[in-house]
């Protein structure tokens, strides 16, 4: 990357800068005329000096004008010049904007792509909290500056010069007088500016540390809470803010001082014009028009002069930012760009001997973890690395995630350091102790290992194609990636698949191998399909529903599910579900907001349920208050049983204390609403509070009819009604198969039904659909919606899916219990039966059965051989095992 901002600008935007400069220079011609126009108007148009009427315009004998129309023509001429000049300004501004944005885009892209090429250890010294503000916020003003970098000084300087020349033509003494203080400004301002620059650097650094600190606080928020460290952190944050405050205070003090001096000097101009010019007019050596023109011109000069000084300050600011950012983004040992862009001419295989030859590696502190380390491993074999320090580095070096300081690591005779990532990232796989799951679907996270390049472009219609071309042209102009994001990046062949069906097979196989298939199945059952987009899947689920209903006559399943029936009240469902006889879509009819919904209230009113709801609400509230009032607020019963949270309980207590049951209508609307919201959540079979008697149920059924019949057009999309013949939109697959509620109070009902559903799904070949929905499950930020074990399994499955020549594992499964560890180890070894597998193991017992075991201590090979050889009495590994 270019070391100075100007080199960067010239290298990437020379053409734009030249065009801008030409535009700026051209604009001076109309500008000069625009300046002289007022004088012509005053002297010729108004005063009529040296003009003989009728005026013959342009001397062509076509138009002749009297005094009034001549003045009018001159004034319109002035207007025309204003327009022309502003047009130039507009064009320059737009063009500047474009080139500035492109340069900013280029800079950001360059920085980001550098981050992706940083050597791994860099991230131990540099945190996301520092890097993010540099790419996002700090470079932002650079875009604006780059656009101005050449054109502005030329344009404004030219303006200044034009004005100055104009003034000299008018009256040299006055011109000199007007600019007499500029040299002083030239001298004093850089002096002040230097201090501001230094402070600016400081400010950038402090702000970056601040960002880092915020980032760290968020990452460690649990620790902060559990050790009551928030006040310490706030105090530290205050200190940092204080530091920034004083820096900024210093900066603006100086900045405003500069401004003050400038403004003062600027106003000296008119002082001279009025005094000297006025004197000369009185003496008759100067005419009034000239003085007016000079004052106007000087005023005009003020603007560019200010702009120039401003630009000077901005330039300094931009320079600092650029220097600081660029120096941070050029760590030692950064990979070449070609390393990621090069595609090997023909496929390179990494099946073969792994060789470390005289490899040294130092960690970020400079301590040598490996020194002149040599090791040869025959492949394809299964190798366990056990012992002490150095294991992890060997694994990372083998996967080329870190690079040796000296020596070389080669696989199948290929020096890893000279292979592009297109080879190492496809033929090798590394799974560390803590893998990362991206915020996307599980499926995307698995296919992650197959998506390297845009392979198959998508079909676009004319309009989309036009937009795409435009995007590409812009991307190219900013030096961005030209990979088509919408294209299919998935390398089916790498997973041994040919189409999406066989790819899904491969994914399911990988999931099974890491024992994640059941989890995905469960997630799938709880996920939903969209019948509009997948009508076949919806139809198949309805088949399963029918099959399930067939089985329900069986004695073993009697009473386990209470079906949805249009004419019957479902005692295992909430009042809200019974009333709507459907699921809310969006939040219009969300359970918590039903009591506020105008239409719902109208329906209740019509069904004669409104007062009843209020009374039941009051009763429920008082029961809850009675039952839960003396429980501590964090008691688990609140979560499990109460439909009033511990925070809300005091409010309800207040309501109950305020009025007695027969005076609920005296409450204000907000409180009535709160009470009304309670009955919606009641489930007869579960809560057994005795409020929802037959009469109430009858009324709810009545309301159900009213609700459906009167539902206004615009609310139709907010409810998905239950319909035995249709898939309920927004409902989970499981709910759609059940089409009813699992009964409360029936022992093991959920388990029995779960087993039945599973058999039905297998019988009807629905598993693929369920898994597909499971794969579409969103993992959340950093995979937060998955458990730690699930995340690790996703990372393992991802590595298996791309079928690498050699898989390198570092712990990778240490988070599981012993049984699972042993099962995963066996499954992986079976999968990689004919391929290379190197496993850095913390627990040496797991090395049993590997083709070869290498014992490492302090970065050296102590010994190697089979597990049996190495565990013989008295051998170092035997001692290690005994110690474990």
């Amino acid at each position, binding site marked *: 990357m270019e070391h100075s901002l100007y080199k960067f600008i010239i290298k990437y935007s020379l053409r734009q800068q030249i065009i801008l400069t030409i535009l700026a220079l051209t604009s001076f011609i109309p500008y000069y005329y625009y300046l002289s126009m007022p004088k012509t108007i005053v002297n010729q148009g108004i005063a009529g000096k040296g003009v003989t009427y009728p005026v013959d315009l342009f001397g062509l004998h076509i138009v002749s004008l009297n005094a009034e129309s001549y003045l009018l023509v001159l004034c319109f001429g002035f207007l025309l010049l204003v327009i022309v000049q502003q047009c130039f300004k507009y064009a320059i501004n737009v063009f500047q904007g474009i080139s500035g944005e492109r340069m900013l885009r280029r800079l950001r892209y360059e920085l980001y792509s550098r981050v992706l090429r940083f050597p791994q250890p860099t991230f131990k010294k540099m945190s996301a909290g520092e890097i993010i503000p540099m790419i996002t916020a700090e470079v932002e003003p650079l875009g604006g500056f780059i656009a101005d970098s050449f054109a502005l000084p030329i344009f404004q300087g030219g303006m200044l010069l034009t004005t100055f020349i104009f003034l000299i033509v008018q009256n040299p003494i006055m011109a000199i007088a007007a600019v007499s203080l500029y040299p002083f400004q030239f001298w004093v301002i850089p002096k002040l500016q230097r201090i501001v620059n230094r402070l600016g650097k400081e400010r950038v650094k402090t702000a970056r540390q601040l960002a880092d600190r915020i980032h760290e606080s968020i990452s460690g928020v649990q620790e902060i809470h559990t050790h009551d460290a928030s006040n310490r952190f706030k105090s530290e944050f205050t200190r940092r803010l204080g530091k920034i405050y004083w820096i900024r205070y210093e900066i603006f003090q100086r900045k405003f001082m500069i401004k003050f001096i400038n403004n003062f000097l600027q106003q000296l101009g008119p002082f001279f014009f009025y005094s000297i010019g006025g004197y000369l007019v009185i003496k008759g050596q100067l005419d009034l028009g000239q003085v007016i023109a000079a004052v106007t011109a000087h005023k005009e000069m003020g603007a560019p002069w200010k702009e120039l000084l401003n630009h000077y300050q901005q330039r300094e600011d931009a320079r600092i930012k650029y220097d600081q950012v660029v120096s941070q983004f050029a760590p030692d040992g950064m990979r070449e760009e070609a390393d990621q862009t090069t595609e090997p001419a023909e496929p390179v295989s990494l099946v073969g001997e792994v060789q470390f030859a005289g490899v040294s590696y130092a960690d970020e502190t400079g301590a040598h973890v490996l020194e002149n380390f040599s090791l040869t491993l025959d492949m394809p074999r299964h190798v366990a690395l056990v012992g002490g320090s150095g294991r992890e580095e060997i694994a990372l070096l083998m996967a080329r995630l870190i690079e040796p300081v000296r020596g070389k690591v080669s696989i199948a005779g290929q020096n890893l350091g000279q292979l592009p990532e297109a080879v190492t990232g496809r033929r090798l796989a590394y799974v560390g102790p803590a893998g990362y799951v991206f915020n996307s679907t599980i499926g995307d996270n698995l296919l992650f290992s197959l998506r390297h390049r845009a392979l198959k472009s998508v079909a676009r219609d004319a309009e989309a194609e036009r937009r795409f071309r435009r995007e590409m042209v812009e991307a190219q102009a900013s030096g961005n990636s030209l990979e088509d994001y919408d294209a299919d990046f998935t390398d089916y062949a790498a997973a041994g698949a040919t189409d999406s069906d066989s790819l899904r097979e491969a994914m399911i196989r990988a999931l099974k191998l890491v024992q994640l298939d059941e989890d995905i199945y469960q997630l799938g059952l709880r996920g939903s399909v969209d019948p509009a987009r997948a009508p076949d899947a919806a139809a198949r689920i309805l088949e399963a529903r029918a099959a399930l209903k067939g089985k329900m006559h069986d004695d073993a399943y009697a009473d386990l599910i209470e079906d949805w029936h249009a004419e019957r009240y479902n005692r295992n469902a909430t009042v809200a579900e019974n009333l709507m006889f459907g699921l809310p879509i969006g939040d219009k009819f969300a359970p918590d907001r039903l009591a506020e919904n105008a239409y719902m209230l109208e329906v209740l009113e019509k069904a004669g349920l409104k007062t009843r709801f209020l009374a039941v609400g009051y009763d429920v509230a008082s*029961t809850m208050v*009675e*039952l839960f009032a003396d429980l501590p607020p964090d008691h688990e019963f609140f979560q499990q049983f109460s439909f009033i949270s511990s925070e809300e309980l005091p409010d309800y207590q207040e309501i109950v204390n305020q009025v007695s049951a027969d005076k609920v209508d005296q409450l204000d609307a907000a409180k009535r609403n709160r009470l009304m919201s309670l009955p919606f959540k009641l489930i007869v079979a579960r809560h*057994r*509070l005795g409020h929802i008697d037959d009469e109430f149920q009858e009324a709810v059924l009545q309301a159900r009819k009213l609700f459906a019949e009167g539902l206004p057009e615009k609310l139709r999309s907010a409810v998905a009604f239950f319909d035995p013949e249709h898939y309920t939109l927004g409902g989970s697959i499981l709910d759609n198969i059940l089409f009813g509620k699992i009964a*409360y109070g*029936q*022992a*093991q009902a959920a388990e029995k039904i779960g087993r039945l559903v599973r058999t039905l799904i297998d019988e009807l070949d629905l598993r693929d659909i369920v898994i597909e929905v499971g794969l579409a499950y969103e993992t959340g930020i950093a995979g937060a919606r998955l458990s730690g074990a699930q995340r690790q399994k996703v990372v393992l499955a991802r590595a298996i899916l791309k079928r690498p020549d050699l898989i390198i594992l570092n712990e990778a499964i240490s988070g599981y219990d012993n049984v699972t560890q042993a099962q995963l180890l066996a499954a992986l070894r079976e999968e990689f039966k004919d391929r290379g597998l190197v496993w850095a193991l913390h627990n040496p017992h797991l090395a049993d059965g590997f083709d070869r075991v290498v014992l490492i201590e302090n970065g050296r090979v102590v010994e190697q051989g089979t597990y049996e050889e190495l565990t013989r009495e008295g051998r170092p590994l035997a001692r290690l095992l005994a110690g474990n």
Partner: protein
Amino acid sequence: MSLHEEVELLRRIPLFARIEPSKLKLLAFTSERLAYKAGDVLFRQGDPGDSAYIIVEGEAEILVNTADGPLRVAVVRKNDFVGEIAILCDVPRTATVAAITGLTTLRISKELFFRLTAEFPQMAVEIMRVLGQRLERTTADLREATARLRQAGIS
């Protein structure tokens, strides 16, 4: 069955006879009423235990695993409780309990069980009494068994 009826029902169980109604209400509200079909298993020997059960209706057998298969050691009926050992002593289930007839139970979580015994010493005493009776019976059985073995000349 409504909550009120359930409170009445609980009150008739000797264990809860002296507990004040509002606490019984909480117990009724937070405990799960479960219906089992004949042959259904409440829990199995060796499972981790997290709750005790009060039999509200029906009969259940207590089975212990032996070398010759499961052995019925007792039958429990209405108002009896089972499963308390595992939550009192924090050990896995010591026996399997299965429904003989259709069975209704009240499942009380460990948490609630301890809360109630801590708040109502009468309840703790009542449990102690029942456990004492069981111990007495077990001891009697043991005595009888030892006597029979001696008669048979084995020991």
